[in-house]
């Protein structure tokens, strides 16, 4: 998780929206916690801070494409600038 503010409401929303575009089941794993990637509420409960190691898992017919799309969200740092405001 490179974003300075961690996985807060806005990136969590983006992530869940992206995840919902795919048929596959998508889950996020941090430490021992596993949550539904399509649920913003669930994703928020991870409370992932900057620097947290997150594993994204996809299972289903379009798993590969889904992982690529979500991966690129992380690569783009959820379209946030380093100094952007937390929402």
């Amino acid at each position: 998780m490179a974003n300075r503010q961690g996985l807060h409401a806005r990136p969590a929303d983006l992530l869940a929206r992206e995840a919902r575009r795919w048929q596959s089941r998508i889950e996020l794993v941090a430490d021992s916690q596993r949550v539904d990637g399509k649920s913003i509420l669930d994703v928020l409960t991870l409370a992932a801070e900057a620097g947290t190691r997150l594993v994204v898992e996809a299972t289903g017919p379009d798993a590969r494409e889904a992982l690529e799309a979500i991966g690129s969200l992380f690569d783009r740092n959820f379209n946030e600038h380093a100094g952007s405001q937390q929402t």
Partner: protein
Amino acid sequence: MLKLQGIAVSPGVTIGEALVLDAEGFRIPRRFVERSAVDTELARLAHAIAETSREMEQNRDRVRAELGEQYAAIFDAHLAMLHDPRLQQELTAAVRDRNWWPEYAVSRTLRRYAKVFQSLDNHIAQRAHDIYDIEKSLLRNLLGQRRETLAAISQPVIVLAHNLTPSETANLDRRFVKGFATELGGPGSHTAIVAEGLEIPAVVGVGPFLADVSGGEPVILDGNEGLVILQPDEETIARYRLEEEAARTVAARLGRLRDLPAETGDGVRVQIMGNIEFPSEVEQCIDRGCDGIGLYRTEFLYLTSKREPTEEDHFAAYSFVIQAMQGKPVVIRTLDLGADKMLTETMPEEERNPCLGLRSIRLSLRQLPMFRTQLRAILRASGLGDVRVMFPLISTIVELRQAKMVLADVMEDLAEHGIAFNRKMPVGMMVETPAAALMLDAFIKEVDFVSIGTNDLIQYTLAVDRGNKEVADLYNACDPAVLRLLRRSLDVAAEAGVPANVCGQMSGSVMFTQLLLGLGLRQLSVPASAIPEVKQACRSVSVADCRLIAEKALAMDGAREVKAYLRDQLRRLLAETVA
């Protein structure tokens, strides 16, 4: 089971169903829907979600236009949470599979999320507020006009709320509300005094706990220990049932004292008066066989209404009490509020030290039209029975004289208009500052009676705010400095032949009964709930023994020593009474 510690403000224990009120006063009972109604209820839920969503979008657009994108984003987050597929699934399943009432499903489900967020050691914890916002909007749309309020309770409940205002507390229906607990509040708050008046167990200052409980769940409220117990186990429930039963037995035994006089073993008659705030409390005092009303606080008139009380408001309340007392004395204390609690437009700037600021008689003397209105009503009521007026927080002789002058002036006014009143109405003052106690030999010549208000006297003597956790342990009625001021005041009054009374929590606690009688006190003013116990204590002692106890206590140097001694003496007394 979850045990929460709060501040005990009104004694008693009770077990009952929770009625949870959030900040807007919503009431969410645990209710189930008929199987046949599931589809209708699901449609109602869907409609509420759609309405809530529409409101959020409107808010977002308005905020975006007024404040910019950055602020509007918060509503985007709300919308995303509201439409979270997982949440929607859970809500639907709760109604369809568990047959929960949609309101209950919303409250339970969202509070569970709020609780998870609150437990996070992270800025995400603040998202809990968003969840509560969403819950509130959904509930408002679900309940609509059918919203249930405190006023519409029709079965026994324990009210759990974020906060209750004094007027909300005062309007609780005693037939159904078995007790209450609030997240906010402290001892000595007005809500606490009102709870004691209603004689229902109450615990305040519990801290955040509403996320842990839903309406309809069993709750135990222990107003003796200041405990709220959520999801109690069987064993705890059984233990509290026994305690409830024991309290009823004691109450029945003390009830038999009603028609017996408060007379000591050696034949000295003590007057036991009641403290009241609400006119209706007078019935509770009469039921327990009081000798009069020793302290009628009039603040409720100012606190329960949005406007300043009129002369008729005052008069109606006073005449109700006076007529109920049928010729027994009623001591009406004039307004004893701080400027911070008043509704007047001429509010002074925020005071740095309100307890030492513009309050009580000082405020009355500054707000003369308001003071005159109250005095007119008291005077008009003075013809209806044995009415006496008392000025609070007198600290200089000038204040006493000014207050008496205003009273004389109002009398002239009434006489001019041919309105009847008792020209000889006794006038008294409260002794609640060290200044008043030390100068009482001067004041005593100008009053017909005095009443010692121990709560304020202790606070001002020991320079301790008992609402402040950091120093509350220094607030101690047993402090020798307090006892000396008490002794001095009672001695001065006795020498001048002026009747003296002690009101305040000290007189209502049987630990002090022997000490106070030993210091020469013959009139105690106590909350209605304490009348039987204090009467019983008076009937079990002799004044000769009390004098020895007082002498010994007054010779001690420290509060701890005094407290231990008085506890011992009380224990001895109780042992004898039982034997």
